[in-house]
């Protein structure tokens, strides 16, 4: 028998994680940009 509770947890948890992680990567990309621009800026 299908454990629908597990199925729903898998789907919502999975989709949530995909979103969460990509948002986290978005933030880290922005942070990287700010930091690297600062480093590059200091060199000038």
């Amino acid at each position, binding site marked *: 028998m*299908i454990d629908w509770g597990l*199925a729903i947890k*898998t*789907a919502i*948890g*999975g989709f949530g994680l*995909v*979103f969460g992680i*990509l948002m986290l*990567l978005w933030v880290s990309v922005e942070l990287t940009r700010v930091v690297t621009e600062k480093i590059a800026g200091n060199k000038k």
Partner: protein
Amino acid sequence: MLLGLLETGFPLFYWGNALMIVIGLGFIYLAIAKKMEPLLLVPIGFGMILVNLPLGGMMDYEMTLKAPQAGIVMEVPMHEGDAFEKGGVIYKLDTGEVTAPVFGRVDSLKVSQGQSVEKGQPLASLITMEQTNQAEVPTHPVGLFSRIFKFGVMWQILPPLMFLCLGALTDFGPMLANPKTMLLGAAAQFGVYLAFFLALIVGFSMTEAASIGIIGGAEGPTTIYVTSLLAPHIIGATAVACYSYMALVPIILPPVIRLLTTKEERGIYMKPSLRKVSKLEKILFPLITTIVVILIVPSSAPLIGCFMVGNLFNECGVTERLNKTAQTTFIDIITIFLTLAIGASMPAQIFLQSRTLLILILGVISFASAAAAGVILAKIMNLFLKEKINPMIGAAGVSAVPMSARVVQVMGQKENKQNFLLMHAMGPNVAGAIGAAIAGGVFLGILG
């Protein structure tokens, strides 16, 4: 069945094999005449043909049939060389029948009528082409492709290595220049979960449903990787669904996009110039991503780790030899192994089942709903953005790199000839590949 000295394949050849050979020839025709994904369809098609020629043995696995209980052999309905269906009776004991857990043919019979057998005693050696759950039905490969399949695919070596090569070929630049497009790549994974639920509803098991859902990630290696771990018996169907729909993206995506967008929205102009991304950012991205993603979803390590190390080869500037090999020779080698093995995982007895048709239908739903989710999120984002994005780039979240981005470019230029969406669409496109790998990792973490 022996015909004199030479055993031919004819006695075991049936209409299903003929049909699969026709499909395999069709793949090769499409590749040669229509130039459709020739690097995939030629070897897959050829593998399909090879494995449907009986007794070729390319995809054979050997297994030992053991007595499920003690008893006396009353009848032996099979002869050596005979073919049987899954569940076919191999022996009749006084205590019950001994049936085959797979389809296949009898290699050798080890006991005869009147003999008494112990529980667990080997009764026969059987040959099958089925991918079995090794914990329940242990088999060992005895053919060329079954060996490649077992040690390449089932041991999860080839799909991650394929990901490494794809990483080397991927430029995250457009995504790093406009990182909000990463959300579109995440949204498109909706297709994975919709198909997962639909598959459960139509009666697939949890692990099968996850493998079917992941087709919508539109990532060949991810699909193969997840299926090989969760539901190896349907790997031929999910792999073929994934690769064929990737090739059919130019046909699947446009109607979905048109349904969800107005002409004006499709004509939204996006400035061609993306921010220039520095080399340092491009080097840091694979490193940071590896650490962040694998800490959160450890089971995605083989896919994400390989994807990112390949990308680092490409971006770091000091591993040009490795990068070049990954992008050219190595990806070709992996492609040859992987595609032949995938083609060979489709003997008629396994592929020609109603569930294959269901998987193909669910796969296309998965692709279409993934594109729809991307477009819808892009439209929602536009409610908040000052500089509007063209909602079509959301559809490129269906990774199928770079096919879906190309589709968006072509459709965009149809509305406005000055509009170049290709680079904008590459952001969600490569983010979709990361999203699919994460989704696969989560499935493995929970269900594996």
